[in-house]
């Protein structure tokens, strides 16, 4: 079923891709940052503190998406016993982890001037911290175990445990009283964020997504080179 995965063919594409991605990333980040920091208006209530949101929200989105993606890939890889899915997951994880930490830190920086506290043990913030711990577990597992079979099983299990936390993060603000505000951007109902603020948010999300793609490609290329050097280990 997955005969298309031949390391040499993939490597031809993935080794060339980073230079284009980095160009696109720099362009979009420049546009996004100037929109977010200069051109977008200040908020009626929190004034300039709103600009932290343009880093905080995209970072949180990306870290949640990457974890979901890792889980799906790990499960497919586990069911069909295909190593390539695990290599993709492994290469995706570090950027997801970094964005998770960024979301937590920027949240704290925003929380101090608006809420009046750096940290609150409310459901949203705590569940986001738990996600960071799952990312850490996932990354440590890859370093800890040499045996491929073992590492695939354990990482799949960790992602399955962690994925239950993802809907909890998303809906925590609706299910329980939290200090964190509910979502401003809704697919089904009306957005309660003004379009002049939505614009930089979307551009910054695109920039962060490109950055994750860039790091992913670099990590993934390393994995492919390792396999090529060994010569024995076929995908």
């Amino acid at each position: 079923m997955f005969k298309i995965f031949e390391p040499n063919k993939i490597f031809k594409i993935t080794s060339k891709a980073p230079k284009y991605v980095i160009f696109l990333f720099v362009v979009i980040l420049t546009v996004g940052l100037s929109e977010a920091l200069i051109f977008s208006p200040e908020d009626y209530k929190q004034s300039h503190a709103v600009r932290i949101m343009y880093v905080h929200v995209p970072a949180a989105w990306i870290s949640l998406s990457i974890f979901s993606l890792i889980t799906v890939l790990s499960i497919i890889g586990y069911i069909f016993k295909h190593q390539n899915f695990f290599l993709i997951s492994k290469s995706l994880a570090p950027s997801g982890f970094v964005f998770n930490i960024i979301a937590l830190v920027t949240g704290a920086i925003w929380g101090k001037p608006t809420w009046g506290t750096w940290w609150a043990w409310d459901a949203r913030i705590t569940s986001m911290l738990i996600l960071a711990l799952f990312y850490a577990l996932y990354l440590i597992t890859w370093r800890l175990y040499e045996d491929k079979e073992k590492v695939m099983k354990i990482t799949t299990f960790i992602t399955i445990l962690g994925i239950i936390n993802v809907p909890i993060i998303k809906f925590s603000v609706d299910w329980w009283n939290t200090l964190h505000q509910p979502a401003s951007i809704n697919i089904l109902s009306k957005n309660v964020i003004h379009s002049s603020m939505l614009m930089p948010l979307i551009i910054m999300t695109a920039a962060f997504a490109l950055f994750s793609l860039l790091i992913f490609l670099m990590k993934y290329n390393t994995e492919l080179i390792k396999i090529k050097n060994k010569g024995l280990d076929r995908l």
Partner: protein
Amino acid sequence: MYGRKVKLRFLFIFIILTTLILTVFLILKSLEENVIYFQSPTDIKKLSDIYKKKIRVGGMVKKNSVSISANELKFIISDFKNEIIVTYSGAVPNLFEEEKGVVAEGYLKDKNFFLATKILAKHDENYMPPEVKEALEEK
């Protein structure tokens, strides 16, 4: 189409996920009281006895309820059904305002009086520039 092992692994993952989701759901359901960050004035009214330990009450700061005396701030937290009077001395966050969300941490004196030791402003999900806010208010 797929091998027997593949089907078994699929079933394995499916059962693990279902079991875990159910377990976590039940745990969270039973822990609800601890998961929530603050209680509403209505929750306080429903209490059978008054807590001695520190709790948090949250809701809206009622319009025209904030009064500042020599060393005390007094205001009413409302959830549009029930209200609770809060007294506090100390600095409040910048976003503390009438008709905006607030979370007060402290001790209950009785079901209508709350002695706050810390005030947090709760920000809502509305984001807009000041001009838009003004335009909205004019309407």
